[in-house]
């Protein structure tokens, strides 16, 4: 999906200038890049080896040697948080890809066709929505076994109706507009109109929803790992770390505090980024400022 917005007077430079003035966008962008860098760094370097258990160093509080402390096996929490970021990002990102890849065409198609096709697609949507997402995710991981890949599938399936709904609602608002009528009069097919006029006009909506679902995916992955259904040990994951921390809250609260903060900061960064993008690219929201 290409991302271009129908605002003729807007140049790339103009958008960039606006981006630099937008606090939400800047904060979100910086946080997101830092988290990405942290995950990338973990491939080549972490302060300590996360697979090595050093029982002599177990449950130590934060110190100069271990900034975030150590867990009950003496592993360095900072290193585990770094490696855990990979897992969270990968799961959530692919799940968004699945949701967008399937959901947006479905929603746009439903809006373009209308009638029975629309009705049928939306009923299937209702059906998926009727299952609380986490519950279906638990069932899916229970069928196929726990693991990162199945977590991706479980979260991705839940993303599909979200994007279908957003794409359909956005497209329905675009279809009655005059420029669509003009395109029709010019003899364009509904598929052409959808690709050339509808999708660019709902791209902002989809991009913003994408960052929201990315953030939600990180939360969902953490929830699944917390229940033991996500990435399996020894691969560290933020949710699993919180599970391990729970029974040790009194003796080692840092085991819970830092992985949780990692989740909060990541999700916050993504949400700010989404809000910022919406502000910058959507002329309507700019008028409201």
């Amino acid at each position, binding site marked *: 999906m290409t991302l271009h917005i129908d605002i003729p007077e807007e140049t790339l430079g103009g958008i960039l200038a606006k981006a630099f003035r937008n606090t939400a966008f800047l904060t979100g962008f910086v946080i997101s890049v830092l988290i990405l860098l942290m995950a990338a760094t973990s491939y080549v370097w972490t302060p300590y080896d996360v697979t090595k258990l050093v029982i002599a160093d177990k449950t130590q509080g934060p110190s100069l040697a271990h900034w975030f402390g150590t867990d009950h096996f003496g592993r360095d929490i900072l290193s585990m948080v770094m490696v855990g970021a990979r897992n969270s990002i990968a799961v959530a990102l692919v799940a968004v890809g699945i949701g967008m890849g399937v959901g947006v065409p479905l929603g746009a198609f439903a809006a373009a066709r209308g009638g029975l096709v629309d009705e049928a697609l939306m*009923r299937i949507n*209702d*059906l998926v*929505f*009727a*299952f*609380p*997402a*986490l*519950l279906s995710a*638990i*069932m899916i991981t*229970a*069928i196929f076994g726990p693991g990162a890949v199945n977590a991706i599938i479980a979260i991705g399936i839940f993303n599909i109706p979200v994007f279908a709904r957003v794409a359909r609602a956005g497209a329905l608002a675009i279809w009655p507009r005059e420029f669509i009528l003009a395109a029709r009069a010019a003899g364009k097919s509904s598929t052409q109109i959808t690709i050339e006029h509808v999708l660019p006009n709902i791209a902002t909506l989809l991009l913003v929803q994408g960052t929201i679902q990315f*953030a939600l995916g990180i*939360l969902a992955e*953490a*929830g699944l790992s*917390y*229940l033991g259904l996500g990435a399996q040990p020894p691969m560290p994951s933020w949710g699993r770390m*919180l599970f391990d*921390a*729970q029974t040790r*809250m*009194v003796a080692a*609260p840092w085991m*819970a*505090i830092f*992985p*949780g903060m990692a*989740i*909060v*900061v*990541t*999700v*916050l960064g993504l*949400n*700010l980024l989404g*809000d910022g993008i919406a502000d910058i690219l959507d002329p309507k929201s700019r*008028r*409201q*400022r």
Partner: protein
Amino acid sequence: MIAYLLKRLAIALATLILASIVVFAVLEILPGDPARLMLGMNASADQIELLRDQMGLNAPLIWRYLHWAGGLLSLDFGRSYTYSVPVIDLVRERLAVSLPLALIALALSTVIAIPVGLFSASRRGRAGDTISMGAAQLGVAVPNFWFALMLIYVFAVWLRLVPAGGFPGWSAGIWPALKSLLLPAVALALPQAAILARVTRSALIEVLNEDYIRTARAKGLPYRTVLWRHALRNAMIPVLTILGLQFAFLLAGTIIIENVFYLPGLGRLVFQAITQRDLIVVESVVMLLVAAVIAVNLLVDFSYAAVDPRLRSRS
């Protein structure tokens, strides 16, 4: 209006039937033979076959589905493989924990979110708006189970005001029971309230830009009247939609939160049943939760008609 309501009702029923087929089909393909599970490792093939016959597992698929669906309708959910008690008894017992928990959380979230959204929208761009939306932004980012752990640390471990987990049962008195639901409800409600406040604010801002709001202000109505009577009412549709969706989130959220607080609720029941392959319990509870979500969404659809007169006249 009646045609609209009937249509929504028909859609809800169709969704429910489809959902029951999906649940049944999914659990049919789940690995693991309940008969083998019940009899244990040392059972002979003959014994297992006999029990499968008794449990009706050898009957044709469609017959089993109809039997199961008919049972659901008459609230006869069958017997749990692992607990060896009727599922309906388990459900009733667990519902007494989960339903109050979800309702308290929903109420808390609404009571916090709507006023915050109103406040923010009416002070758009000013310090009050920035602070409350900053807080909401943070609230959306907090995973409810981590928030729960932090609440436990502060209020149960440190201040010792409430129990860290467990549930004394309603027989122990209303207050002790409510006390143990308090932290879980707050943990569930906060992230939901943050989302709802943001939706309320943006829906209100959208409405406040409409021409009829300017007209209402121009004819001299006080801002407060315009905000409550004209704007809030028109902003209710997105707010109600999110409230309906949030109910599903709350139900799912209880699965994790009940695990954090060791609450004997439906969520914990279904999670344990899945890991123990207690399929009858899984089927029943999932169907119950799905039915609840569908019912709430139907209510939301009906309430659209109540707040939007256009839907009332449309057939």
